[in-house]
């Protein structure tokens, strides 16, 4: 009996020892996904219950709290601009020539019926600053060996208490993410693909977001062009640039 217990304990500890440290993986993910600043053009394809529509955007972000986005397509939205500074968001609509401010709960509303909120679209917080990671196993996703990582938030003010990531063991990029409510209900799922080497880092150029409580096929987010750590003029992140 003692031998059996010893064998089991040894087996478990060996298995556990084979799993890497979650924090190290998160660091590597942050190195790939986060940057001091970036400029990118993207398309958002929103699959609704009956219709599909596409929005094209150009975004400038600096750090975690500054972001500026301009709508390029469709024509009726062309010229709409969004500026996010800290917890405040301003939206400029050329049709009304007015700037409206969005704060609090409104930031959590869906952007044009998509599966992304304004927060999702314009935030770029490092995972290591928010979550404790624990590697719980491995699985193959789209032909890539992935670590399964359980994330638990250690900061109180966070959208998702728990997340589960499937992280590519070679490229250190999550290929699948699941976000959970405090009750454990699965709220959102993202699939990341078309991972490419850009400026020495791996980056997914296609992300599919799916609100699991809502019907529809989700929202595709396609990065068309992206540049990391390029100089961005300060005036971009000012309210004056909304009307320019």
């Amino acid at each position: 009996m003692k031998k059996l217990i010893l064998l089991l304990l040894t087996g478990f500890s060996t298995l556990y020892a084979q799993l890497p440290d979650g924090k190290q993986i998160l660091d590597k993910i942050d190195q790939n996904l986060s940057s001091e600043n970036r400029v990118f053009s993207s398309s958002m394809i929103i699959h609704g219950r009956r219709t599909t529509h596409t929005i094209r955007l150009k975004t400038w972000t600096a750090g975690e709290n500054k972001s500026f986005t301009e709508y390029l397509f469709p024509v009726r939205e062309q010229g709409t601009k969004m500026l996010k500074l800290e917890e405040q968001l301003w939206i400029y609509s050329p049709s009304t020539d007015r700037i409206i401010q969005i704060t609090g709960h409104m930031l959590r509303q869906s952007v044009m019926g998509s599966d992304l909120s304004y927060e999702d679209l314009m935030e770029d917080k490092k995972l290591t600053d928010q979550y404790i990671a624990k590697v719980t196993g491995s699985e193959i996703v789209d032909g890539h060996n992935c670590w399964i990582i359980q994330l638990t938030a250690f900061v109180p003010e966070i959208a998702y208490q728990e997340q589960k990531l499937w992280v590519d063991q070679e490229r250190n990029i999550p290929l699948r993410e699941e976000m959970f409510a405090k009750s454990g209900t699965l709220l959102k799922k993202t699939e990341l693909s078309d991972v490419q080497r850009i400026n020495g880092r791996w980056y997914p150029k296609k992300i599919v977001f799916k609100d699991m409580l809502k019907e529809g096929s989700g929202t595709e987010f396609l990065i068309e062009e992206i540049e990391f750590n390029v100089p961005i003029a300060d005036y971009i992140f000012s309210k004056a640039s909304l009307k320019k």
Partner: protein
Amino acid sequence: MLAFKLALRNLLGAGLRTWLNVIILSFSFIIIIWLKGLLEGWDRQAKNDMIKWEIGGGQFWQASYDPFDPFTLLDSHSTIPDVLSDSVTNGTLVPVLISQGTIYPNGRMQSVLFKGISPEQKVLALPTLKLKSDGTYIPAIIGSSMAESTQLKEGDYVTARWRDKNGTFDAAEIRIACIYQTNVPSVDVGQVWLPIDNVREMMLLPGEATILVANKEGWKTEKSDKWIFKDQKTLLIDIENIIKAKSFVGILIWAILLMMAMLAVFDTQVLSIFRRQKEIGTYVALGMTRGQVVQLFTIEGAMHSVLATLVAAAYGIPLLTFQAIRGISIPVESKDFGIAMAAKLYPVYSLTLITGTVIVVLIVTTIVSYWPSRKIGRLSPTEALRGRIQ
């Protein structure tokens, strides 16, 4: 007295011309009384319903709360001050905690307000007793408009998603325990009522509330600067303003109708003076002063409104009484206006309204009759007697 007798005889003698004027004038009577009565009925019904379903005897609002500004909701909550806590315990003040969230009826996403209220409350007409449960599920009550827009039925479960005070997502299934009928859209459209304990737990706000609804009038803002008392008058100001605006439109319609009727009376008077010059001359020749003749013609004109009152009473009393008893059906779409309006409105005709209308019409008709009659004062009696047009 002679003037009255003569005026009545002349008036009746004019036949169809008089009766046409009288009928037009009687329409004005009926329409103004009906319109005013309808607005008065709506005013009473809307205020009664709002007091019964939403505002009670007034409300304490958390200082940051502004129902017209959703941005304020995140910060519009605090613990109930000691000075009011006894009233909350004995049920004279009912705490309501309001937060924003989302429900997913049939896979569709819909933003809602979650309103937490005590199931045992007796201040508002909401069927909150249905919010009692054995703890195995979260019960919810919704209004019929909300049920219609979400296609939810009693007994249905729907996923609710919200963020707690830290902004962390949470979700749970809630069960529709009851669908209630109300004429007050502000306790129905886009709202889900839940037990307050559940909402406090969901939002991580134990013991907190957004508003406190009083059971009767007479409260005032206490020293606590976090809670401000809004009395019934303040809370009913919007519906009062809407009804005032509607009353203005009513007055405008009435003024147009009255103007048309007065135009007819004025024309009749001008025509009478023009055609009855010999008669005017005869009156003067028989010893009447010019003033007396003017008085006679003025009384004659003003008597149109007296006859109109009688005619209006003849067909108006049964018609308006019937409507006051049976009510007037309002199309279902009127719910979408977002104001308290019953499916059927019952007009209220007060004595002040009826006598007021009669007096106003009588005075206006007298003025309109006197206006052309002044010309008589300038007539030469001899020329008038000859029937020469002056």
